[in-house]
Structures are given as C-alpha cells and as structure tokens.
C-alpha cells in the first residue's frame, strides 16, 4: 500500500515538473468568486500535509483522497505525510518564506489561532471549505476561529476520558467507574488493596492535568478578562488533588520521562486499573494483554467531576488552507470534501476517531465502530481551550511545574506560582 504512495508521489512530482514547464494556470482570486464557480470545472494540484500516524491512520486518509479525485478528476492531490512532532515548525518555516508550504494542512486545534494571527491561513468564510458550519460541534468548531473569522474546520475531535479495567474494578468491589475525584481516590485505593494492581496511572503531561483544574472550576487563563488564572484558588485546588493522589498512593508513582508510554503499558497489561486517555488510544488499548481476548473488559467513562463540574480539554485536528496557496479554489473544495460528514464518518468507522459533526455520528459508517458511541458521554464534558495565538506556549511551563510536583521537588502552590510567572512573560499585559 505504501509503495503505491511513493509511486503516486513520483508521478505527482513528474506531473508537477511537466506542468511547471507548461506554465500552470493559477487563478489566485480572492475567495468570493471561487464559490460561485462550477466546482466540477476547478482544476489544478493540491498538496496536503497530513500529520496523522503514517502507519495506522494515513492509509484511511489516502483512501478519502482517492474518493475525492474520483469526484473531481481535474484536481490532483499530493499527499505528504509530515510527522506530527515536526509539522508545526516545518509549516511555519515554510509558510513565512512563501516557498515550500502546502496548500492544505492538518493542523492541531491548538495551532490554528497562532497560524491565523501570523497571516499564514486563508479565511474560509464564503468559500466552499466552510460547508454547513451549523453542523459542527461548538467546541471543536471554535478552535478554527480567530478574531471573528474562520480559518479552519474540524477534521476530528477528541477529549480525555477515564479508561478503566472492568475486572480490576469489580475485584475491588466497584461495579461502576468513579464519578468524582473523591470516588476516584477511593476506588484506586481499593484496587490497590484488594485487586493486586495499582489504582491509577497518571501521565505527567500538562494536557492531562487539565481535567483536574477544570473539575474544580479553574482554567489556565480567563481570556475574556485577560487574566492568568493558573495559580488562582480553583486551579490550585485541582492540582492539589493530583498531588494528593500521588502522595496517598492512590496513583502509582508516575514516571516523568515517557510518562504516557509507561502508563499505557501498565494499563494494557492489567498492572493498573485506570488511566486518563483519549479516543486515539482505543486501538492501542484493545491490543493490550488484558483486553485483546476480552474487549468488554475495556471501560470508557467521562473524567470524574470535581467540586464544580466534570471537564476535559477539547483536542483534535482541523483542516486549514495556506494563504499563499497557488490553487485556492481546489484547496477549498478539498477541505470541503475531507471535512464533510461522510468523510468524517468513514474516518470514525475505520479509526475510531470522533467526528466533529453531530450528523456524522448517525451515519452507518460511524455506527459500525462501537467505540464511537462509547465516547459520546466523555465528549459531552469537553471544555473549550483558550484559542489564542500564545496557546501553544502555555504547556511547557505547566509541564515543568507538574514534573516538579510529581517528583516531589516542589509543592503545588509554589510550582503554580512559577507557572503563572512564566505566563506573564508570554502574555504581555495580562494580569494575575
């Protein structure tokens, strides 16, 4: 299958070279006329940078491209898989130079505001790319907006849920997963004392700290009033809960490096009963020792609630169009196709990733995958993140703070004060 791609890529490169010689027609008119034109008449090439897992997810998206090209035979799509870890930097370097950037990018929800603020993205209002905007879940859709304009449309959405090993919980005397942080601690301690496994595995990562902060009614920032709230009492209360989970032994002592992998390994082998993770891990988990032959043992629940609510961050990926694209009309059509309910349902069915369109959940393709329905409740608790250009810089200081708390180097209050100070350096003019 992959060899087919490289052949296709070679063919595309050849086509590109040929068309470059012939002087490609590139109508770079502003967005409005594009929608008026007949879509079937649009021709040209679209380069798409896909940041999905090349081995497991890429082929599904390539299948969609084949469908797209069948529908629009005059448009040629160049599929380029860019490793996720490199994509943000690579795109920015290429975008600022005006040479080498793709026409369409699969952007993580947190990148869009930043790219848009820097002028890298094309606004999508009035273009075919923004199709049926009312049929997007509000939280993922908000990730594509910046300064009142839409710069990206959601591809998939996700959030964190509480994943649990039903048998271990049962052994500990719990038929249902914990619904509050207090129950989480108790359940974890019961598992530890009765089921011969650890209760909870934490992933020392800023993103995974958010459910605790949200649960107590806190957030990193209050965007509306330009306030840094990461060290405010609510957020601090959330982090204290994590601290208590570690010191009380309810959570196994977390690894700091490779925290995610270690937590997953322990969960898949039945060495720990509960973890927080997202829908992207479904396939991985179901391949684990304790779930492989017994998929019913794998439980998915919303993250437990704190004193304020149950909340987990909204994640996922969007489609964005590069402002400097030489072929905007074709790019818009490509995004329209890829973000359609049908495409999202296909992705959901094959990969278990959550569609960002409510209507996609009802399509047979999506319903064929029983994981999708199981994530409906956790998804209802998803909280919008602060979609600001500086959003991408917020995690590193929080990660360092969390690492210090998890290693016992610093108490949660002192660590959060440091994080708030770091945020002040990033967000000029914001108050504490």
């Amino acid at each position: 299958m992959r060899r087919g791609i490289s052949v296709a890529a070679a063919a595309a490169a050849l086509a590109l070279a040929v068309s470059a010689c012939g002087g490609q027609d590139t109508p770079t008119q502003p967005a409005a006329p594009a929608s008026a034109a007949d879509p079937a008449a649009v021709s040209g090439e679209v380069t798409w940078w896909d940041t999905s897992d090349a081995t497991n997810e890429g082929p599904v998206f390539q299948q969609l491209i084949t469908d797209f090209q069948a529908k629009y035979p005059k448009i040629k799509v160049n599929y380029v898989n860019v490793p996720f870890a490199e994509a943000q930097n690579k795109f920015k370097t290429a975008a600022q130079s005006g040479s080498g950037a793709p026409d369409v990018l699969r952007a993580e929800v947190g990148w869009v505001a930043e790219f848009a603020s820097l002028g890298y993205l094309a606004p999508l209002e009035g273009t075919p790319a923004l199709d049926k905007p009312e049929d997007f879940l509000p939280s993922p859709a908000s990730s594509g907006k910046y300064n009142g304009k839409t710069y990206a449309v959601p591809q998939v959405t996700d959030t964190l849920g509480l994943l649990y090993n039903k048998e271990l919980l049962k052994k500990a005397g719990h038929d249902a997963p914990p619904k509050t942080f207090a129950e989480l601690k108790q359940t974890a301690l019961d598992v530890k004392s009765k089921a011969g496994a650890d209760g909870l595995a934490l992933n020392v990562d800023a993103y995974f700290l958010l459910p605790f902060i949200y649960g107590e009614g806190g957030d990193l920032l209050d965007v509306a009033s330009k306030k840094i709230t990461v060290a405010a009492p609510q957020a601090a209360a959330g982090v204290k809960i994590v601290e208590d989970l570690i010191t009380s032994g309810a959570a196994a002592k977390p690894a700091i490096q490779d925290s995610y992998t270690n937590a997953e390994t322990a969960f898949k082998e039945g060495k720990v009963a509960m973890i927080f993770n997202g829908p992207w891990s479904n396939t991985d988990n179901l391949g684990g020792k304790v779930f492989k032959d017994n998929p019913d043992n794998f439980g998915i629940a919303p993250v437990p609630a704190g004193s304020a609510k149950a909340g987990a961050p909204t994640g996922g990926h969007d489609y964005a169009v590069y402002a400097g694209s030489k072929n905007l009309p074709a790019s818009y059509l490509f995004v329209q196709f890829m973000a359609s309910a049908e495409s999202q349902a296909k992705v959901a069915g094959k990969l278990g990733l959550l569609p960002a369109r409510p209507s996609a959940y009802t399509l047979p393709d999506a319903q064929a995958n029983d994981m999708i329905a199981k994530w409906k409740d956790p998804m209802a608790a998803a909280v919008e993140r602060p979609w600001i250009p500086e959003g991408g810089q917020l995690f590193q200081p929080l990660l360092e703070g969390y690492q210090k708390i998890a290693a016992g180097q610093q108490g949660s209050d002192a660590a959060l004060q440091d994080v708030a100070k770091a945020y002040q350096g990033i967000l000029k003019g914001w108050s504490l």
Partner: protein
Amino acid sequence: MVSTLTRATGPRTRTHGRGARGPARSAALHATLIAASLVAVFPVAWLVLTSLKPRDAWQSSTVELFNSPSLDNYLQVLTQTAFLRWLFNSLLVAAMTTVLGVVLAATTGYAVSRFRFPGHRSIMWMLLITQMFPVAILIVPIYNLLAGLGLINQFPGLVVAYLTSTVPFCAWMMKGYFDTVPVEIDEAGRVDGLTPFGTFWRLILPLSKPGLAVAAFYSFITAWAEVAYATAFMTGDDKYTLAVGLGQFVGQHKAEWGLLTASSVLIAAPAAVVFLLVQRHLVTGLTAGATKS
C-alpha cells in the same frame, strides 16, 4: 600496497625492541577492549533484538531478550513503506556531501597548512565561527536563502547546507594531518618540478589517507543521519531522506517501535559498510612513503 607494507613491518620492529607482550598484559588488553566493545554494542544489540520482536512487543513491562523472533518488521519496512526511496535519497545526499566535502576540505586544509597567504588565519577562524552559531537558530535564515535560490526540496540545497557543517571540521582536521606530513616532501615535489596542485595531489594526499578516511566517514555519517535540516528543507515526501522518513514511524501518541528499530538496523548497516571500506585507509603509509620519496 603501501599501507599493508607499513603494517607488516612497523609493528614487528617495535615488538622486537620491547620484547613480546606477556600473556597477562595481553589478557588485560583484550579484557579492556572487550568491556569497551560490550558497552558500545549493547544498546545496538538491543536495537536489533527489538527489531526482531512483534510490532508492539517492545512496550512491555517485562524485559525479555526474545519474543517470537521474526523478520516481519523488516518485511513490512521494505515492502510497505517508502524505505527504499528514502535509502536511495540518503545515499545520494550522503555520497555527494562526502565527495564534495572531502575535496573542499582537503584543498582548504592543505592551503592553510602549507601557504602563509594573506587571510589564511581568518579562514580558520571563519570556519570555526560557522560551528559556533546554533543550528536551531540558523534553520530559518538558511531556509529563506535556499528558497530564494530555488533550492528548497532539492538535493543540492540539502548538500550545500550539510557542507557548511562538515567542511569546517574536515578542513581543520585535514590541516592537522597535513601539519604532521613533513614539509620536506613538498620540497621534494617542487624539486621534481611539480606544481603545488601536483604536489598536493600526487604526494601529500596519498600520505594523508588516515585523515581523509576520518574526514570521509565523518562527512558521510553527518549527512546520513542528519534530521534538522532535512526535515525543514525537504517538503515533498518523494525527497525524504532516511532520518525524515523514519519520523513517520513516530506518531503523535504512539511510536511504531518495531518498524523504527528494523529500519534503524537497515540504516546502520550501510554506515558500517562505508566504515569497513574506509577503515583500511586508517592505517597510514607515511613511513614507507616518506622513505620512498
């Protein structure tokens, strides 16, 4: 050949002078080398073992040497990914970098070692300073330069970028080696009526094989496994080199360790072959060469 000649005669005379090494010393020598080799090889061996395990078996809480060993990962890498294309691209880039780099470095190193021309010191400083500016900060300006020259997503662009990091070291290195070659040899060349180029090419280079071998291997390895420039400059996946292509096995949440390790082994193998090719030149013909001329 000259090199074998030296190896055969040189050590023997020394052994005679000092007397044969005692068995205890010999054992200690081997023990040290074996210990060092073990440390050097262990992680690599683990890489090989992991590559033979099933795709997801690396993620395990128990440490095991073998887990149903098979070549499945290799098969998948070779047949279902663009690995061979990446390999070809890398070979092309590394070969161009090595050849160009060694030639440029040798001429520069020789000029600086032998001639006191105006600017020879500034050249050495200049080469040094290029190494001091952090690469991470240079990527964007070099990208813009290459974009202006139309060299983005082109192998020559990548090779030129690599040369900026290999040539300075190799030139310095070669200067060091040339400094140890007696000037009398140049003079002999001049007496025989050779031009400076001729002297350099016919007399000095053959005597500097160890230095050339080190420079060549250094250039090759640098270009072979470089990630940062290749990731930024190669925007189409038909131009990916191995290091960039390998990144595809590392997803946002999960790495394909089976595939990653198998391809790493496949990558290390050509590097080892190149080393095998150059390593016989690591033994110089200096003594023999010097007496001959």
